[in-house]
């Protein structure tokens, strides 16, 4: 059975534009969002110059996932309203949608469900920027996309192992890659200059006690990931619900009714068209 140490591939993964398996759209998006001092104008210009991309981004922003149905009509308006980082994240989201449709369809529903749950919980807790938490939910398993694309055989082995041995996909990843998708997601989100909060969520959504910068946001996405699986939405690599970290769960102070609300909103939003 194939096993590699993914940590020795970090440079290769960070140099994502050189990976032959990565589609052109993602390469172009990667090269713009990694810019050190990306301005509002630059990003808006980049998206607006590609009408297909612009319409996908606006479609996602106006979808039930973000809770602004039908209200945002231009990319610059979106950036003003949601901030540069959220639009960067949504831009990435639309391009990973394309990939997930091809390589692991259930991962898109998993990611969307997680984005919705994360936003609703962030709103309930009165966080100032629920859309940022939603983007963290949308992108939290981004590392899986790269692993599947570039190391398909090892990833297939991981999925099979998880199901057969009854272990979580991240445990199976440790067997086949020595590290998990959470680390891969962290490397990329650092490279793409995402805010520290998002990097924390990427790195620690399966080990939320280790989150230092954004323990609350990490706890939200950690629990959202579990709730989506509990409801049986999508497929994230294994068919099991992982146990919640009790400290993180207590941090959220959610009542039974709150959790029911999140389930209902997740379901309603996913019933609407989610093909971006």
């Amino acid at each position, binding site marked *: 059975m194939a096993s590699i140490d993914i940590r020795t591939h970090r440079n290769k993964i960070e140099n994502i534009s050189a990976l032959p398996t990565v589609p052109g759209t993602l390469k172009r998006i990667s090269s713009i969002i990694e810019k050190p001092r990306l301005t509002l104008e630059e990003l808006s210009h980049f998206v607006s110059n590609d009408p297909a991309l612009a319409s996908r981004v606006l479609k996602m922003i106006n979808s039930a996932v973000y809770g602004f*149905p*039908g*209200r945002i*009509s231009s990319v610059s308006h979106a950036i003003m309203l949601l901030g540069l980082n959220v639009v960067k994240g949504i831009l990435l989201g639309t391009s990973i949608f394309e990939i997930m449709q091809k390589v692991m369809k259930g991962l898109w529903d998993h990611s969307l469900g997680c984005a919705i749950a994360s936003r609703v919980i962030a709103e309930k807790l009165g966080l100032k920027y629920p859309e940022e938490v939603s983007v963290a939910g949308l992108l939290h398993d981004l590392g899986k996309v790269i692993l599947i694309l570039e190391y398909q055989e090892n990833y297939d082995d991981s999925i099979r192992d998880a199901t057969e041995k*009854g272990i979580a996909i991240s445990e199976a990843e440790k067997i086949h890659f020595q590290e998990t998708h959470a680390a891969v997601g962290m490397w990329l989100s650092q490279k793409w200059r995402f805010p520290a909060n998002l990097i924390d969520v990427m790195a620690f959504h399966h080990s939320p006690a280790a989150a230092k910068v954004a323990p609350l946001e990490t706890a939200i996405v950690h629990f959202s990931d*579990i*709730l989506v*699986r*509990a*409801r*049986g939405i999508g497929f994230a690599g294994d*068919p*099991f*619900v*992982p*146990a*919640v970290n*009790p400290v993180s*769960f207590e941090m959220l102070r959610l009542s*039974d009714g709150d*959790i*029911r609300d999140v*389930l*209902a909103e997740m379901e*309603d939003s996913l*019933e*609407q068209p989610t093909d971006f």
Partner: protein
Amino acid sequence: MPKIPIDKLEPGMKLSKPLVSRGGMVLLGDGTELTEKWIDRIQDMEVDGIYVDGPSEQKESKEESLAKLDARFLSVEKEPYMGRLKRIVRDYIEALYGEH
């Protein structure tokens, strides 16, 4: 709350979500009870369906759905909070099948 195709709308149904035009204007608020007149207007518009109150139609039987839930939770049920979470999800699923 199911989404109903516009040719299946009947007077007396209540909107569970506002009806929003392409331009983002709210045309009918949630909770609006549909009349013949509203249904005619809605059928003139380019919408593919309307959300109304009531249990959604489910893709699988309740028994199947609950059996899958048991399988997903099998190894974590005894962990802290997981029994509670399972109960909430089970109640939620049962309500989808119209048992309140």
